[in-house]
């Protein structure tokens, strides 16, 4: 890493913070032994290192098991969102057919009107989604935003004279779209992926806290926070430990990605700033500033 000192220290800080919950989430289930017999709810001590939870299970055992769903669901949802957003955004940025672009992007504009958690709760009121269903839902609410960022980043690259020069050379559509435009947008998208993963982790754990996508007694950090709240006075560890782990996971991810993608000399602050700007617009604005201060939203056309 060639980052400057503050970014370097932030990278280290992020890495340390995220390492604990990540290690617990991925290795915990392997390390956890036999759950052992249940004892009395909300006790401290008695052979239980972190006490017992609302139904008398060992809290440490639950902590070891409870991170995997959040992390895996989060990663899967992020990947899924891009799986859809990438082709949609790239095609609508590179295509010269206005209709196709409208067809791809307009429905997404409409979808943006629904607050993400509301959509998840709506679905949950009718179905009972499991972890896979939750991942699909979270991915779905992320698609419009991600597609817009892909489109904006690729649209800017596609409007450069370099693209016209490539077409003048008779290069194929693929070579222009993937070889040049795709490559030019990789950095922006990597930065966006970092921000998005943080947002997805937020949404997945919040949904679990509200009881969506998980069983009511599941070993899941967010569920533990919710269910053990009643015993907060007598047995705070059953709430505080999973809550701290979730804070560490989300915070660490954000710090880490920001340090890796935001600060190194190669991507000036501008890159991330622009990304944040893009993200700022994203809620349901219909490409608001056409031809105004953000010419990179408009593609392929040069003012005479």
């Amino acid at each position, binding site marked *: 890493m060639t980052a400057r000192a*503050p970014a370097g220290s*932030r990278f280290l800080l992020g890495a340390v913070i995220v390492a604990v919950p990540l290690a617990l989430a991925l290795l915990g289930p392997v390390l956890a032994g036999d759950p052992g017999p249940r004892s009395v709810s909300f006790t401290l001590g008695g052979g239980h290192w972190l006490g017992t939870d609302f139904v008398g299970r060992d809290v440490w055992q639950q902590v070891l098991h409870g991170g995997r769903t959040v992390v895996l669901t989060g990663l899967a949802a992020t990947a899924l969102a891009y799986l859809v957003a990438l082709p949609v955004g790239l095609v609508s940025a590179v295509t010269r057919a206005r209709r196709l672009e409208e067809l791809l992007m307009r429905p997404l*504009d*409409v*979808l*943006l*009107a*629904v*607050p*993400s*958690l*509301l959509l998840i*709760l*709506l*679905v*949950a*009121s*009718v179905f009972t989604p499991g972890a896979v269903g939750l991942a699909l839902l979270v991915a779905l609410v992320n698609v419009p935003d991600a597609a817009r960022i892909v489109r904006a980043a690729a649209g800017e690259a596609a409007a450069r004279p370099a693209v016209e020069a490539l077409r003048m050379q008779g290069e194929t559509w693929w070579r222009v779209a993937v070889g040049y435009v795709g490559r030019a947008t990789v950095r922006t998208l990597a930065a966006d992926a970092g921000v998005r993963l*943080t947002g997805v*982790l*937020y949404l997945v*754990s*919040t949904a679990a*806290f*509200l*009881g969506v996508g998980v069983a009511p007694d599941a070993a899941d950090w*967010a569920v533990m*926070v*919710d269910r053990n*709240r009643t015993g*907060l006075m007598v047995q*705070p560890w059953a*709430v*505080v430990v999973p*809550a*701290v782990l*979730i*804070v560490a996971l*989300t*915070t660490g991810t*954000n*710090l880490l990605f*920001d340090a890796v993608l935001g600060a190194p000399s190669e991507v000036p*602050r*501008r890159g991330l*700033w622009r990304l*944040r*700007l893009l*993200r*700022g*617009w*994203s*809620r*349901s*604005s*219909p490409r*608001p*500033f056409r031809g*105004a*201060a953000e010419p990179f939203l408009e593609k392929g056309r040069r003012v005479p």
Partner: protein
Amino acid sequence: MRESGLRSFVARRLLLGIAQTVAVVLLVFALTEALPGDAAVALAGDQPDPARIAAIREAMDLDRPAYERLADWATGLLHGDFGASLASGRPVARYIADGFGPSLLLAALTLALLLPLGLGLGVLAARHEGRLLDRLVSSVTLAVYAVPEFALGVLLVTVFALKLAWFPPTAVGYGTDLLAHPAALVLPVLVLLARPVCSLSRLVRAGMIDALAAPYTAHARRYGVPGARVRYAHALPNALAPAAQQLARTVDWLLCGVIVVEALFVIPGLGTVLLNAVAERDVPVVQGLAVVFGVLTVVLNLGADVVAYRLTPRAGVAA
């Protein structure tokens, strides 16, 4: 030229807003249609006795064709008639009216504090760019930005309500009249503020730093305009447009946040009503609330977009 541009922008934006509203209504309605098998049986859930199933079928008019029910429901919405709850039979509009006060109070307090806090922190960090204070503010805002409300809230409750006993841990026992118990509001508003303040201040900071480094700011300084005036009258306006856009996004966060915070602090607002309805599969209540939330989002976004459009600096040259 600017005025007509604004007008056509508002017109386009209004059209989209209407489309979005219609889409929300259709989406919400479609969900009940998407129920697998017999909707009434599915909704009866744990107590599938024939009487209850028949009652649900009756209440939701499930025997009539879907388009007729949609037409009736949509017409009802226009008149403020959201149907009746499956669980209690009370009108959905009453549920909404009851929960509106506390939710509005939370949202309004948060927004009122958000602007001065976000702008202030952002400008402060930008003025000290690269120095300790800026690094501190940047790191903390970056870290807190990502934390889910429930985790932050539960930790704050543990420290400030249980250990230090400064504030009550929940709003239980205060009813809907929260304004009479300001201590109970401190932690919920703090939790609601955390994420939006962080994102807003980061945006303002970045915008200010860019603006302070821009040639036009150097030009104003060169001609002897005092430092404070350069910062607040010349640089800051350039940082406001992204901030206004971010406020639009915050609307979504606030709605999510309000739901979580109400659940966490047991505040009887719209979020609690929604969660209870979801738990009870009280579809008409969920639908009614979803429409209210959806329309609210559309309207607030529209407002924020128009403000942002007005504030956005434009480059270039007139023909």
